[in-house]
């Protein structure tokens, strides 16, 4: 099959780009790993309206309903439960669904594949019972699941506060909140005036925090958090004021912000920039969302973390950019102005500089015994040892330790390896590169590749 535009991701950016491009009459296909549209932020949005969790998920979540409905009637072809494992020049996309592969062609590609939670290793983070806050929130949105027993949250940023509030509103309980944020630095306070433009957002954060304080204990100023137990999480320990503290725990939810998904743009050789404050890579894009590769666009959190509202607007801007690039519209500048896209995006991003400065990624020294690569179970100590005997290059560490060679393909350990190499070689992290990302972008079986030839012959 051949289309004008292939969009990867049916979250806020992908859906709004698809809707806009269909208004121009472009043929659009939207490919998404999930069974229904919405992305992680609006996960389960079509099904949840009648669910008892719907009111607790809040007004922002409910706004996803209209977007998903507009996407459904947009006329874009929609391929749910489908993974993209290879993108080639021209463009050809290789997909797998239900164990069968297929190839589709497109004149332009929009990557709207969003973000993932920043992996932050600590002792015991592979124990059953430990997972991310985002994961728990997805369980709530998709199946209406609440954690049971002694539930602890450790982390920083808006998401733990939002999730804890949703949980409490549904009658859930939190044993305690381990706040990993550091006291606001000058850089954060300097950005407060700009953040007032999103007064509602600021107020929301304060209200969330008050609710948590009422329901459980808040621990601040601790270090060396450890999750311990035999076969599953049983207790947490941490160091505070020269003393080791210990509590019972059944579930620990962790969160240290989100980072863009970069495997696709790295594999395609796009230029990236290093966001030093938030410690992540993102594809460089121009004012239309076009990457350094012609007719390859990136929108939403995948091009830098901005949240769902900014993502819908950047999706719309990328749609205009693609329409211009493909010669579908010659009025893109005028349309951009008329829809006030730049002003709306600026407002949607008003709180972001403040949040970015408030919640920098943790930069504590990782103990040697902590597993950095979950798949191949490589410890920070083993990576340091390999790093000392090699140039400051993740490929050397990978070859020596198997770190990054498991099924997640470095999605969980990439930044950790980069940081450990920088530490050992005394370099700024920005001067150490990420793993070389090569296809396939997701594990694919020989059977799936074989099914491709049959599908190609049939068309």
């Amino acid at each position: 099959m051949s289309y004008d535009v292939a969009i990867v991701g049916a979250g806020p950016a992908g859906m709004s780009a698809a809707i806009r491009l269909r208004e121009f009459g472009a043929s659009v296909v939207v490919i998404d790993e999930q069974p229904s549209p919405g992305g992680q932020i609006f996960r389960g949005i079509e099904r949840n309206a009648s669910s008892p969790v719907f009111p607790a998920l809040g007004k922002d979540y409910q706004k996803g309903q209209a977007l998903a409905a507009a996407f459904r009637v947009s006329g874009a072809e929609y391929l749910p439960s489908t993974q993209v494992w290879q993108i080639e020049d021209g463009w050809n996309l290789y997909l797998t669904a239900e164990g069968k592969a297929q190839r589709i062609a497109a004149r332009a590609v929009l990557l709207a594949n969003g973000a993932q939670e920043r992996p932050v290793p600590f002792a015991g983070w592979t124990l059953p019972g430990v997972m991310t806050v985002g994961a728990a929130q997805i369980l709530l949105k998709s199946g209406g699941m609440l954690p049971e027993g002694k539930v602890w949250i450790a982390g920083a940023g808006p998401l733990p506060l939002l999730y804890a509030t949703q949980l409490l509103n549904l009658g859930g309980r939190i044993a305690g909140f381990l706040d990993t944020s550091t006291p606001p630095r000058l850089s954060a306070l300097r950005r407060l005036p700009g953040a007032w433009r999103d007064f509602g957002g600021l107020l929301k954060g304060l209200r969330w925090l008050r609710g948590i304080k009422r329901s459980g204990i808040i621990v601040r100023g601790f270090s060396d958090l450890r999750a311990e137990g035999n076969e599953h999480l049983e207790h947490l320990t941490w160091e505070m004021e020269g003393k080791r503290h210990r509590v019972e725990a059944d579930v620990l939810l962790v969160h240290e912000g989100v980072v863009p998904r970069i495997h696709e743009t790295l594999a395609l050789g796009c230029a990236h920039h290093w966001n030093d404050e938030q410690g992540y890579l993102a594809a460089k894009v121009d004012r239309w969302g076009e990457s350094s590769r012609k007719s390859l666009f990136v929108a939403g959190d995948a091009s830098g973390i901005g949240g769902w509202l900014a993502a819908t607007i950047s999706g719309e801007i990328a749609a205009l950019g693609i329409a211009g690039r493909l010669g579908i519209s010659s009025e893109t500048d005028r349309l951009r102005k008329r829809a006030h896209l730049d002003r709306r995006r600026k407002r949607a991003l008003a709180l972001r500089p403040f949040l970015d400065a408030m919640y920098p990624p943790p930069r504590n020294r990782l103990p040697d015994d902590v597993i950095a690569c979950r798949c191949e179970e490589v410890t920070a100590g083993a990576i340091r040892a390999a790093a000392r005997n090699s140039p400051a290059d993740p490929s050397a560490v990978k070859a020596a330790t198997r770190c990054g060679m498991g099924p997640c393909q470095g999605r969980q350990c990439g930044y950790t390896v980069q940081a450990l190499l920088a530490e050992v070689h005394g370099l700024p992290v920005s001067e150490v590169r990420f793993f070389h990302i090569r296809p396939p972008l997701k594990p694919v079986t020989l059977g799936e590749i074989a099914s491709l030839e049959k599908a190609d012959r049939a068309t």
Partner: protein
Amino acid sequence: MFKSVREQLGKRSDMIVLVNGVETPAWDGETVASVLLRVPGAGRRSPVSGTPRLPYCQMGVCFECLAIVDGIASTQGCLVPVRPGMRIESQRGPREISR
């Protein structure tokens, strides 16, 4: 470790799935990964050390939710919604060629 809100409200489950051969209630919208978190001991074992693992990210990134679903091993459980009668088996170690 996790429980359905609707179960807490006294509602009946939407379907039955088989987890390692045992009939298990399941809920519309939940994924295989969600079931793994509700049934004690249903998670996978790491192919490296054999230690137990459970789903970590729920968004297709970490591959900790790998399970044998309707006979197909190394299925990412977080991407697959449950279906009535679905057979979910724990994946112990690496994928075998036979499945």
